[in-house]
């Protein structure tokens, strides 16, 4: 493959390879990943509600139907089970569909197809049938929309064997992880932090590149406490780390990138080094990803822990309406307070 060897793969923070780059926001990076893969592999399809002429409600699929036609970009009826279920059939029939679910709050109708079938068909058929499908969707809060438009349901997917769950934290990550997800032969749920869709631009190689699934990365080095985050919360983690620095606390930040496969080694190594951990996500606390990370730290680094693992998460409540959103979402101050608690313990 004539590709640049991508910069920040794995848990290393290696310098980015020098290659042709453009400054893109996350929506553009994702769009480029889709277009590149559709151009490279004609079995790649894009399907979902409003992915055609509308280009998706967030414009991630913009221009694709014009370029690849309506046999590669399928505007579907309004039915999430239909989208994922028929995509399973398309996989069996030789395609690699990239489905869009309009918001993560609307995945429940497709969970039977996703969890009872997509996640299981390989196992059920002892490897005879694969489901090389990607199910993309915007997730998380921060844009003050109506109910059901801000949810973070990744924990429930992580509890479902057979799926991969990938969550990029910036445009560079988004392109590399989406390309890897499309090329992956297993069903991948690809969660897009809508809050940072257009929040900032970043240099992104124009050539396709893959970031391997299942390798977390150290997004910032530090020595006193490890903050483990992903998606939009990574930016919150980094900002909190900066503020902590001003207080003399050195924070290491780990970007999980994938919830499944979970790269336990990378965050455990970090916690062994720092002795303290804060895990950060937007989804509800109980049985959330934070519980898994905390449990894994307890299992693998108990004797290194100088303080309990702090969980900074969404509350065990419905994601609130626009007027109360900022109270719900973990923010820098809240992370900083947790960092301080691990230090003061």
């Amino acid at each position: 493959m004539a590709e640049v060897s991508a910069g920040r793969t794995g848990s290393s923070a290696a310098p980015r390879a020098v290659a042709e780059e453009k400054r893109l926001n996350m929506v553009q990076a994702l769009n480029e990943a889709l277009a590149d893969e559709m151009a490279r592999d004609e079995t790649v399809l894009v399907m979902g509600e409003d992915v055609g002429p509308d280009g998706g409600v967030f414009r991630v699929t913009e221009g694709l139907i014009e370029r690849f036609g309506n046999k590669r970009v399928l505007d579907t009826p309004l039915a999430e089970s239909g989208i994922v279920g028929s995509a399973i059939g398309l996989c069996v029939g030789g395609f690699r569909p990239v489905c869009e679910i309009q918001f993560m709050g609307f995945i429940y109708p497709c969970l039977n197809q996703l969890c009872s079938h997509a996640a299981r068909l390989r196992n059920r058929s002892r490897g005879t049938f694969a489901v090389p499908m990607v199910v993309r969707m915007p997730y998380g809060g921060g844009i003050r929309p109506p109910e059901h438009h801000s949810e973070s349901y990744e924990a429930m997917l992580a509890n479902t064997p057979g799926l991969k769950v990938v969550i990029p934290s910036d445009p560079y990550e988004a392109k590399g992880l989406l390309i890897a997800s499309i090329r992956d032969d297993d069903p991948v749920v690809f969660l897009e932090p809508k809050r940072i869709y257009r929040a900032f631009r970043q240099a992104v190689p124009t050539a396709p590149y893959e970031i391997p699934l299942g390798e977390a990365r150290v997004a910032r080095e530090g020595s006193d406490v490890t903050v483990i985050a992903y998606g939009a919360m990574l930016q919150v983690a980094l900002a909190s780390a900066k503020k902590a620095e001003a207080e003399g606390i050195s924070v290491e930040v780990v970007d999980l990138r994938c919830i499944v496969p979970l790269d336990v080694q990378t965050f455990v190594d970090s916690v062994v080094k720092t002795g303290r951990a804060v895990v950060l996500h937007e989804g509800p606390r109980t049985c959330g990803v934070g519980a898994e990370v905390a449990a894994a730290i307890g299992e693998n680094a108990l004797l290194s822990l100088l303080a309990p693992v702090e969980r900074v998460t969404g509350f065990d409540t419905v994601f609130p309406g626009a007027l109360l959103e900022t109270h719900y979402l973990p923010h820098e101050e809240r992370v900083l307070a947790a960092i301080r608690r691990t230090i003061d313990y």
Partner: protein
Amino acid sequence: MPITDVYSATTRRIEILDKDGKVDEALLPSELDDATLQRALELMMRMRAFDEKALTMQRQGRIGTYGSMRGQEAAQAGLALAIEPDDWLVPSIREQGVLEACGVPMRHWFGFCKGDERMAVFPGVNALTPSIPVGSQLLHAAGIGMALELRGEATAAIGFAGDGATSEGDFHEALNFAGVFNARTLFFIQNNGWAISVPITQQTRSATIAQKAHAYGIEGVQVDGNDVLASYVASRDALRKVRAGEGPVLIEAVTYRMESHTTADDHTRYRSADEVAYWAERDPIKRMRAYLEGRGLWDETRHEATLKKLGDDVEAEVARLEDNAPPPPTDIFDHMYSAMPETLRAQRQALLDEIAVRGGNGANHG
């Protein structure tokens, strides 16, 4: 007879008032006296006035995302005229018109669009909160209709949805449950031609939505949804039947969404100006006004006076909306359970502590 017909069926369409304001007198219901006919027009004008105000307020950042109902006034007003006070309304997100016509103060809808959850509860009517996951609410309407049937109450539950919603599995399960349990439910589908950017022709291969009733052995009927009289007649007949426990009914009101899907959408990306113009000619308000003017029941003076009064009503609602203090942060927690679990109480306390540390009065942190 080895090849036989095991089923045969037709689906009717009702039109009474045409686009130029001419009425089929034979079909004009006698109970529609002059005052009621005028009220029909007023209801529609009122819906439009509130709708226009909402669009303005959204542009000004005074409410959040708003989905306009412009163009769908006749469908909703015609139904509203046939609704009884005890009937249950199970709305999705474009039924502000019928709620308004049933007496719900529109500040509640505006508040809902602001993200103030206290306002999504509608006083004075039997109505559920608006349901956002498309199609799902139809099962609630089926269930309420089952409850009414179990108790033998002469009341109807009315479930609302759009054309796009008919593709969801829940549409199917709702109509099937309603059929099997003889639910006292009317399914009122506003086929406005589009589900965001997907036209009805890509939503389903069936020629009409009304014919989907055949799958459930229930009655289905199509009306010109821009004709308030047709909508009234179909709704009246359907509701009578439903309330009497004679079976659920599906009404398809064929109408058009004149605006973008919501203020977050741009309809020019996916549909033609010609199409919009075609439907503008079929405007529900224009034709009813023409009809009433022809009968001497409406004139320019009355029109202006009505608009003036509506303008005042709208401003009064907005004023009351904007008088509302914001909800307290604890609102996030306080309605999750009938009694608050310990773990949740701790989370609530943590938020309060955080706000206190900020020297806070509960205002957002930034």
